[in-house]
């Protein structure tokens, strides 16, 4: 049966669809957003792009309360007067033109919002609101329609907006155009008749090109100088040398009165170099890697001072403070529990999906999410030294092998060029001494490996973008060569090979009546156990309940029971519900009974994503594939049968063991790509040569990963790896082209048939042809 996707978010509808207004929705959240939008005249949201919505997350509304604290609030507000304030929020969910439409018409949802302006590139919205609307309420409104604001490390990202390179480009372009324009009379021979005019233009050129040398090109000099100081070479050395040589040569011509030199070529050269750089940075900009792990940390917490409770910033919490944490909030620092028993979910830190029970007086580590009633904690350690950050720091920092830009190959080429230019200079000194400088300059410029230097960033940049179109987002271009040297691929199973949150649930046994279902829903809803939550997810589409639950009890490790409409229900292990039915081995199931009568069981299947087996099979041809799992080995047989090449399967692995496993493989000189969901394998992702985090929504970010891959595209991994390998071929073509180019140019230059002017015209031409070649060869093929 093929179903329409959810009208709002476009997800396929699992379970019973919700019909409203002739449209189908996947959940009540999506329906209510639709309702909200259509009653407020914003139906056009759906006509701009189909299924454009973002699924709203049910979350605690308390979490935005910190926004009303003065110290925190002022970080986001940039203008305030008596009646209104201007606030800029980072909304990572902005993804299409419908989002812009909705957000810029948000004033229709609440009259207290005056206007909103979206910056799509930065995924930011600047809102003007009336003072009667608290900022926390604004955040809730945004959250409700699916754009939850993100408050991680805001100040840092805001500061970084550097226009310097654009200014440099502008100055170089200005000089290039101007000098070229007034060189025209000289080039067509007019200047010959008037020494005065020639002198005038040449001095003017000299003046105008000064800022190009000192301002536009200064990055090259700084970089070359740094390299030389550490007694090494980088590609900026010959570029800087070429720039200086060309400039000095031109100056010499100008001041000896022999013409205006090659100032136009000089400015043009710098201009083209900068355009190349700008193109590169544009490529990087289209990837937003702005979030770091601090986005997961709470910004503020409520501190108890006697009977008073106030919200303070995390940084201000000191040892011996008493803080209180609500259900679903993350504990920001190591602390001792002061209240009765609660549960703590460490899934973010350790990957353990089942919450741990903590009793009064227990030590609780930071990073745990509290499940249960609001509790007080006695702070033991300041938040920055906590267990969480330590876990991240524990992972070995990747040594910075910054040979990028100067791979050994172009380095040798570079040394060769320097030697050749010196030798030919000396040789020509003996033939015709006055031409010697000219030859050296011509050699330096024509052989300057800038085409070579451009090959790599352009090719990798293009490959990176074409991978991005397939929803594999790499952190930077340096990941591509690492991708190509991979020998082993390690997969995390749960959440990576299998679907994460939407476990498939199957009801085995008699058909339940609607009344029974709603009772089970109600009962399961009172528990925070992951399996109960799965049951709730499965049933909430079908029924809803207004009945009252009484005598609720939760028995640790056994199950839950409660009374609804006089019938007592039990959900849990088979022993707990007093049934003879036993769970099959390696099966996760919850049994249900009503008034002592066995009703059936829910079986939880973790489902493999589509195309996974084929993918593993295909990868097995070229790589050694490993699978690590924190789970029981219930899928082992299944996997082994489907993918015969698979031999390395390891189950019951803790995050620490996963990390050690990667280290063990690396000790055998293997190059590892780790693919995981980033929740319980962050350490392993970081340790691997390439760590790719699988993401079900693309805005979740894993700090230690080298890239993010959309979960639905995982089956394309072999294709993605081929694309990355393609980079190598294209790079070779570019290298060969630029070397041939350089060699031909060199022969002409050494034999004295090339003036510096022609050389300077040829140089940007070679760079441009490299850009063209690389763009054409890496153009994505339609499948």
């Amino acid at each position: 049966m093929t179903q329409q996707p959810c009208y709002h978010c476009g997800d396929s509808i699992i379970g019973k669809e919700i019909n409203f207004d002739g449209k189908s929705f996947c959940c009540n959240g999506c329906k209510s957003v639709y309702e909200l939008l259509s009653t407020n005249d914003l139906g056009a949201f759906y006509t701009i792009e189909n299924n454009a919505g973002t699924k709203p997350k049910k979350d605690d509304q308390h979490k935005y309360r910190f926004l009303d604290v003065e110290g925190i609030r002022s970080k986001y507000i940039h203008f305030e007067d008596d009646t209104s304030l201007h606030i800029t929020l980072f909304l990572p969910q902005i993804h299409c033109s419908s989002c812009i439409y909705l957000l810029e018409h948000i004033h229709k949802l609440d009259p207290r919002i005056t206007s909103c302006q979206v910056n799509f590139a930065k995924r930011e919205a600047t809102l003007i609101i009336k003072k009667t609307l608290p900022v926390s309420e604004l955040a809730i409104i945004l959250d409700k329609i699916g754009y939850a604001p993100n408050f991680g490390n805001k100040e840092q990202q805001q500061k970084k907006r550097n226009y310097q390179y654009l200014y440099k480009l502008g100055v170089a372009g200005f000089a290039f155009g101007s000098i070229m324009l007034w060189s025209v009379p000289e080039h067509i021979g007019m200047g010959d008749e008037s020494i005065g005019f020639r002198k005038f233009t040449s001095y003017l050129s000299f003046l105008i090109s000064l800022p190009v040398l000192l301002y536009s090109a200064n990055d090259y000099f700084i970089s070359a100088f740094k390299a030389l100081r550490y007694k090494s070479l980088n590609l900026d050395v010959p570029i800087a040398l070429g720039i200086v040589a060309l400039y000095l040569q031109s100056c010499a011509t100008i001041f000896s009165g022999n013409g205006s030199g090659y100032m136009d070529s000089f400015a043009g050269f710098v201009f083209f170099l900068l355009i190349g750089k700008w193109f590169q940075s544009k490529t990087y900009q289209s990837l937003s890697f702005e979030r770091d792990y601090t986005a997961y940390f709470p910004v503020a917490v409520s501190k108890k001072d006697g009977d008073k409770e106030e919200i303070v910033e995390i940084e201000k919490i000191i040892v011996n403070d008493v803080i209180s944490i609500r259900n679903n909030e993350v504990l920001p620092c190591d602390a001792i529990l002061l209240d009765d028993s609660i549960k703590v979910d460490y899934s973010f830190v350790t990957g353990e999906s089942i919450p741990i029970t903590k009793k009064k007086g227990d030590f609780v580590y930071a990073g745990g999410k509290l499940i249960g009633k609001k509790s007080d904690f006695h702070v033991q350690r300041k938040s920055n030294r906590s267990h969480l950050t330590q876990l991240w720091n524990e992972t070995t920092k990747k040594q910075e092998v910054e040979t990028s830009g100067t791979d050994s190959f172009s380095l040798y080429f570079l040394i060769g060029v320097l030697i050749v230019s010196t030798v030919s200079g000396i040789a020509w000194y003996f033939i015709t001494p006055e031409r010697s400088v000219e030859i050296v300059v011509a050699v330096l410029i024509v052989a300057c490996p800038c085409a070579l230097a451009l090959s790599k960033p352009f090719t990798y940049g293009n490959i990176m973008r074409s991978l991005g179109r397939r929803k594999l987002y790499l952190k930077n271009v340096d990941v591509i060569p690492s991708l190509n040297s991979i020998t082993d691929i390690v997969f995390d199973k749960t959440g990576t090979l299998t679907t994460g949150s939407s476990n498939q649930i199957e009801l085995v046994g008699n058909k339940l009546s609607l009344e029974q279902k709603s009772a089970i829903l109600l009962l399961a809803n009172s528990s925070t156990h992951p399996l109960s939550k799965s049951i709730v997810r499965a049933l909430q589409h079908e029924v809803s309940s207004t009945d009252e639950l009484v005598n609720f009890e939760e028995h640790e490790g056994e199950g839950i029971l409660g009374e609804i409409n006089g019938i007592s229900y039990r959900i849990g292990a088979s022993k707990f519900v007093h049934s003879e039915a036993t769970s099959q081995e390696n099966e996760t199931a919850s049994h249900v009974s009503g008034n002592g009568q066995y009703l059936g069981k829910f079986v939880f299947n973790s489902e493999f994503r589509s195309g996974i087996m084929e993918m593993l099979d295909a990868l097995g041809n070229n790589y050694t594939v490993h699978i690590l799992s924190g789970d029981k080995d219930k899928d082992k047989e299944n996997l082994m049968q489907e993918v015969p090449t698979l031999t390395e399967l390891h189950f019951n692995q803790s995050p620490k063991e996963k990390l050690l496993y990667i280290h063990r493989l690396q000790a055998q000189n293997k190059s590892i790509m780790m693919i995981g969901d980033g929740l319980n394998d962050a350490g392993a992702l970081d340790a691997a040569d390439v760590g790719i985090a699988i993401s079900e929504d693309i805005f979740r970010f894993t700090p230690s990963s080298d890239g993010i891959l959309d979960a639905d595209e995982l089956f394309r991994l072999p294709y993605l790896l081929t694309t990355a390998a393609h980079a190598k071929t294209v790079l070779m073509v570019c290298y060969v082209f630029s070397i041939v180019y350089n060699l031909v140019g060199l022969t002409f230059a050494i034999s004295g048939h090339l003036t510096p002017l022609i050389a300077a015209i040829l140089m940007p031409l070679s760079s441009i042809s490299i850009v063209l070649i690389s763009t054409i060869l890496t153009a994505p093929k339609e499948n």
Partner: protein
Amino acid sequence: MFLCIMGVIYLMLVVSLIVAIFFLLSFIWATKNGQYDDDYTPSVRILFDDDEPINNNSNSESNGSSEV
């Protein structure tokens, strides 16, 4: 005659330089103003229908600095 041509060329040269400097300055001004920050949103925004005049908000909008 020749001198006349040269005079014009000097003039043109100075004028071209002034024009170029004007463009350079306006480029820097535009960059500083953030006009190159976001090259996507405005292209979408212009296509939205003004399905109704923004009612009763116009007063408060005038004291804000929203540029519409």
